[in-house]
């Protein structure tokens, strides 16, 4: 157990918590069984009293809520695609029937069948609770902190609305709430965790697409799941964010996806800005020194 905790060491956790540290928890979102019901979005909004916003139609399939933000801590993406469907050379004889069926498909009148080459991808997105969290590093007030569960939470009484975390998140998770000015995001139901309850979204999920648990256990479960899918010929299945060697040290909330991450509005290879901090500060320091030297040199020479 001790070794396991060490393997999942995230900055400020569990060290600073000592005895109070709890095993790191997270989400495994298995999009292969997501049915796009949005129960997670609703449950999150209700439990956390997240205000409503945009009530219109986006024209983006069944997704009218757009993306994660201050007022949306779970977001269900709908990818609706009709992929290339053609007619094989030399076969089948009934081209006319095939064309007619195609026409129905085009009109949206043909019920969905696997053979149609039409696909839905649905995925419930959430804050990744990164091991190396860009938002937490960037926060100038200490409002963002790492909890005893290894999750990342904003303390609203300290947040000063500077918005630096907004541009520091490689996933575009955080945003400022209008009229409030402060930043709000998924807390992984910190209040529920403290009461030994699972987060609202995971509890509401009817297909277990959202699985909550201890992170190392979730990683094992995910590895098994992806293996099963590959055995079934679903070669497109891949895990996203499960690897502690990635650019953010592994996600606390990771995913099983059925296409490239960018298809789901996820960055293909996110890197926490803090990884570049060395070169950032070196350049700023060098520029400052250059400026001082340059100005001093400007005073050299002839005097009037």
């Amino acid at each position: 157990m001790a070794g396991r905790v060490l393997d999942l060491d995230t900055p400020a956790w569990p060290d600073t918590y000592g005895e109070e540290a709890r095993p790191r928890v997270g989400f495994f979102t298995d999009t292969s069984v997501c049915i796009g019901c949005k129960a997670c979005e609703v449950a999150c909004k209700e439990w956390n009293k997240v205000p409503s916003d945009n009530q219109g139609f986006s024209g983006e399939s069944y997704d009218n809520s757009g993306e994660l933000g201050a007022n949306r801590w779970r977001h269900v993406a709908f990818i609706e695609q009709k992929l290339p469907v053609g007619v094989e050379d030399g076969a089948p004889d009934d081209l006319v029937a095939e064309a007619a069926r195609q026409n129905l498909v085009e009109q949206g009148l043909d019920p969905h069948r696997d053979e149609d080459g039409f696909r839905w991808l649905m995925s419930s997105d959430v804050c990744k609770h990164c091991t190396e969290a860009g938002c937490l590093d960037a926060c100038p007030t200490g409002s963002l902190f790492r909890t005893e569960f290894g999750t990342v939470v904003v303390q609203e009484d300290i947040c000063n609305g500077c918005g630096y975390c907004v541009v520091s998140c490689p996933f575009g998770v955080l945003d400022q709430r209008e009229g409030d000015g402060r930043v709000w995001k998924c807390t992984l139901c910190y209040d529920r965790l403290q009461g030994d309850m699972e987060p609202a979204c995971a509890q509401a999920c009817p297909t277990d697409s959202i699985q909550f648990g201890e992170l190392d256990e979730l990683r094992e479960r995910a590895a098994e799941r992806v293996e099963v899918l590959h055995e079934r010929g679903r070669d497109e299945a891949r895990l996203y964010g499960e690897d502690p060697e990635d650019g953010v040290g592994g996600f606390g909330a990771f995913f099983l996806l059925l296409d490239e991450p960018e298809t789901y509005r996820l960055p293909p290879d996110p890197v926490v800005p803090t990884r570049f901090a060395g070169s950032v500060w070196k350049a700023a320091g060098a520029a400052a020194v250059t400026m001082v030297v340059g100005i001093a040199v400007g005073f050299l020479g002839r005097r009037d």
Partner: protein
Amino acid sequence: MSDENDNELRGDVTKSVAGEGTYVHGGAGEPQPPADQGTRSGVGRRRKGGPEEMMVPREKPTTYYGRPIVKPPVWKPEIPFYFFFGGLAGASAVLAATATFARRPALARRAWAGAFVGVTVSPLLLVKDLGKPSRFLNMLRVFKITSPMNVGAWILLANGGATTLAAGLNLLDEDRRGGAPEVLAAALGAPLATYTAALVTHSAIPAWSEARTEMPFVFAASATASAAGAAILTVPADEAEPARRLGIAAAIAEEAITALMHRRLGPLAESYEKGAAGRFQKVARACTIAGALAFAAGDDAFHPPHRRSSLGRLSRSKDELRRAKLRNRLSMAGGTLLLAGSVCKRWSVFKAGFQSAEDPTQVIQTQRADRPRSV
């Protein structure tokens, strides 16, 4: 499994008629190119142990209805003006301290005044952006080296103190030779001018982050140009010589580093060259170059026989008076142009961040390219 098969989806009719029958709802799926995509660390790679050698970026990456991946900044117009005033304050403090030590009291006192104005306006702009003063104080409850914004708040505060002290001492005592307050104000002034560059490059926005090597130098040059411009506007022509030289040098440096930065950014430079950012960039360049030319034309150094004209004689010829007037006008125009160029430069950088964030393909292309993960 071959890459071609790898890319096909279950349930897809395997043979397709190229370029036909492709219907994409919401723009979410161009036909996939046959090659797998490499990433820097292998996140989201198709399968574990997948082909490493295929690093060819897609022509047109798939996106989710074209929605941005990273969020654009929520910063208001106060922020680019803060970048400008912080730069003006920082560079003016360095200029003023150097002038104090170099015994140029007239220049020193004007530059100290400029630094004081800059460092006074800066926190007001920040407070206005945050909404209320107590929110600024929240930043002072911690010191966090991983947050350029926190470090910057401390630099601003410390520089504000040192600059106020040094400015006061220099205004009170014309013969002041300089001491610890001047050294401190200058030592904190230079980072005050460049940390704002670190603030934007320490982010997830591609066009900002990828410019991290050059951006602080652009800010330093732009800040120096603005400090020189401000000094020229207030300092008598005969005392302004170093500021003039600095203005010209800073303008040249700014243009050179900007060109280098854009070249190194490659396709990401588009964020700085198009739209609002591009318009600000063009105005900034025009102002900066014109300002430097005006300085050069009005520089006493270019007219050695007349250099001492305004001080050396009680009566001057008509021609000399006309020349002095022209030089003065050119100096004033140059100073104003450099200040305007510096403001526009920060606006260009600011707007470029929004434009970069709003284009999801920049995030994808940056991360798909085979780049080192930290430098």
